[in-house]
C-alpha cells in the first residue's frame, strides 16, 4: 500500500507504536526465556539476551510433566471448544430459523451476559461445581463453559447473512430443520465456525483463573497453572523457566491463530464486532 499524505504517515506511526506496545511483552518473554538469571536481573534494559542459553527449556523438558499438562489442557480446551461450537450453532439457528414469542428479549438477555464479569459468577459456579463433587476434575472446568453468549451472537449474525430464499427453498423441498442446518447453512458459514472455534480454543487454552479455582492437584494442572509453580509471591521466582513454560504454552494457539487468521478476521468483520 502506498502512503500518500502526511495524514497517512501520522496514522502509520501511531499504529506502529501500538504494534510495539502489543509485541513488547511477547518479545520480552521470548528473550527472558533464553537468559540466565544473572542477565534477567541486570539493572539495564536489555531486550535481547547477550548470550542466549537454552538451559531454561532443557530444565522444563526434563523436570516438568509437560506432556501430561499438554494433554490436560488439550482435553479441556477441545471439550469446551466443541461444546461451545455446538451450542452456539444450535442456538443461533433457533434464533434465525424459528419464530417464537419473546425471541428478541431472550436474545438481548443473552447479549447481556457479555457484560457480566467472571468474578461475579465465580462464586455460584464454584459452589455448584463443589456440590456436584467435580472439584479437581477436568469436568469441573468444562461444565460451566458449555455455552457462550458471544458464540451465539456470532452464529446468529453469520446465519442472518445467508439469503433468506436459500432457506425458504429448503423448506419448499420439505427439508427438515436438521437438513437445512447441516446441508445448507453449515457449509455456507464454515469459515465463521472455524474462526469462532479457534477463538474459543485459544481462550480456553490460555484460561488461568477458573482452572486455578477448580484444579488443585498437580497431575490435573493445565499449562497456564504449571506456569505459577515457578512464580513465587515471596520472591525467588524463576523467571527464566517461567518464561520458557509461557513460551511453550503460547506457541500452539499462536500458530493456530496465524494459520487461520483469514477466517477470524472475516468473521469479525461480517458480524460488525471489532476484535
Amino acid at each position: 500500500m502506498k502512503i500518500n499524505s502526511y495524514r497517512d504517515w501520522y496514522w502509520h506511526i501511531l499504529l506502529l507504536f501500538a504494534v510495539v506496545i502489543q509485541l513488547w511483552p511477547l518479545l520480552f518473554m521470548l528473550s527472558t526465556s533464553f537468559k540466565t538469571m544473572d542477565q534477567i536481573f541486570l539493572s539495564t534494559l536489555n531486550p535481547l539476551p547477550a548470550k542466549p542459553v537454552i538451559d531454561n527449556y532443557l530444565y522444563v523438558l526434563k523436570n516438568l510433566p509437560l506432556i501430561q499438562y499438554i494433554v490436560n489442557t488439550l482435553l479441556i480446551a477441545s471439550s469446551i471448544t466443541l461444546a461451545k461450537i455446538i451450542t452456539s450453532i444450535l442456538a443461533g439457528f433457533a434464533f434465525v430459523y424459528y419464530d417464537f414469542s419473546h425471541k428478541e428479549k431472550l436474545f438481548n438477555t443473552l447479549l447481556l451476559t457479555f457484560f457480566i464479569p467472571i468474578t461475579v459468577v465465580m462464586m455460584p459456579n464454584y459452589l455448584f461445581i463443589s456440590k456436584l463433587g467435580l472439584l479437581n476434575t477436568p469436568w469441573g472446568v468444562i461444565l460451566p463453559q458449555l455455552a457462550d453468549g458471544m458464540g451465539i451472537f456470532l452464529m446468529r449474525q453469520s446465519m442472518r447473512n445467508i439469503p433468506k430464499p436459500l432457506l425458504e427453498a429448503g423448506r419448499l423441498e420439505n427439508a427438515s430443520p436438521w437438513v437445512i442446518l447441516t446441508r445448507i447453512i453449515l457449509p455456507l458459514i464454515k469459515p465463521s465456525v472455524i474462526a469462532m472455534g479457534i477463538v474459543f480454543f485459544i481462550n480456553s487454552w490460555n484460561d488461568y483463573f477458573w482452572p486455578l479455582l477448580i484444579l488443585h492437584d498437580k497431575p490435573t494442572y493445565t499449562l497456564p497453572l504449571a506456569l505459577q509453580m515457578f512464580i513465587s509471591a515471596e520472591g525467588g521466582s524463576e523467571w527464566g523457566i517461567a518464561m520458557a513454560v509461557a513460551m511453550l504454552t503460547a506457541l500452539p494457539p499462536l500458530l493456530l491463530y496465524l494459520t487461520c487468521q483469514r477466517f477470524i478476521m472475516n468473521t469479525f468483520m461480517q458480524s460488525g464486532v471489532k476484535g
Partner: protein
Amino acid sequence: MNGIIFENVCKSYGETAVVKDLNMTIQEGERLILLGPSGCGKTTTLRMVAGLENITAGTLKMGGQVVNTVEPGARNIAMVFQNYALYPHMTIWENITFGLFIQKIPIEEIKARTEQALEILNLSGYEQRKPNELSGGQKQRVALCRSLVKQAPYFLLDEPLSNLDAQLRLQARTELVKIHNLYRPTFIYVTHDQVEAMTVGQRIAIMNQGALQQLDTPDVIYQHPANTFVASFIGSPPMNLLQGAFRDGALWIAGCRVNPPTKWHTLLAEHQELWIGIRPEQCCLSDAPMLHGQIEFVEHLGSQRCIHLRLHQDGQRLLCMLPADQPIPTGTMGVSFSWQHVNGFDGHVGQNIELPNRISHNYAC
C-alpha cells in the same frame, strides 16, 4: 382438482394491510400472472400460496383442501425465486437433485428426470459446475430445472426474469411457456413487466395497493380495462384518459362535442362526469377530426411514432401512435378515433361503465 382458491384472503403486518380481501380462483393447469406495481402485494400473495407467509384472515384452498396452516414442504410446490436461490456450495447437479433425494425418489428416476430436464433447458455438460461459474441466464435455467424435476402440480415463479437482459428475457419467456406445456402444472407467475404478463399469461390478475383490480385474459384486460388504474397501467404508452361530460344529450371532451353511438347514450346518462379511455394506437389523423390539439413532442419508435398532443380548450394531453411513414402536420393536428375501441370510466370511482362488475372472471384457457 389442483386449482387454487382464495376466499377473502387478507394479509397484514401489524396495522399495515398488504393484501385486502382477495377472492380469486386459479384453475388447474392454468398460467396465471400476478401483475402490478412494486408494493402492490403480488409477491406476498405468491408467498402465501407457497406457505412462506401466514394468512391473516380468509381461506386458501389448494386441490380442494384448506392449506392455511399446511407447511410449505407439504404443499407439493415448485418455486423459482427472483434471485434463483441456488445453493452456492453445491454443484448444479446437487442443486437440482437436492429436493429429490429428500423425497427419497429412487436414484434411477432422479437421474432420468435430471438428465431430461438438463437437456430441455440446454444445461447438459454444466452438471459439475458451481452456480458462481454460470451466467445470469444459465442460473435462471438451473432454477427452472430444479423446479421442473420436482414435477409438482403447482409451479410458482417470483419475477424469475427480472435479472436477465432484454434478449434473454425474450428467449426465457418462450421457454417458460414450453415448460408449462410439458406437464401443465398450475402456474402462478409474479411480474411487474406487462410484456411478460401479456405474452406468458393465459389470464392476468392485476393488483394495486393489496387489492385485485381485474382478473381476465390479456386481450380483455387490454381492450376493456376494469378501471382507470388498469387502463393506465397496461399498455405502453398507456391508454389516454380524457375528462368528459355528458350534457344536453351530447358528450363534451376538451370543448369539442363528440357524438357517441346510441348504445352509449344510456350509459352516459348514468355517469354524467366520466373519463374516456382511448388507446394511442386507436387514434388517427382525420379530415373530420373529433379533437384538435397542439403537437408538443414526437417520439420516434422505429415502425411507429408517438405524437404528444395538448388538446385545445382545456389543455388535456393525448398520445397518438401513427405509422412512421405517415406524414405528420406541423403545429396543430386533428384526431379521430373509432368508438368501437373506446372505454368509458366513471368520473368519481374510475370504474369501467361498460363492465357491470369491477372484477371480471372470464376464463379461456
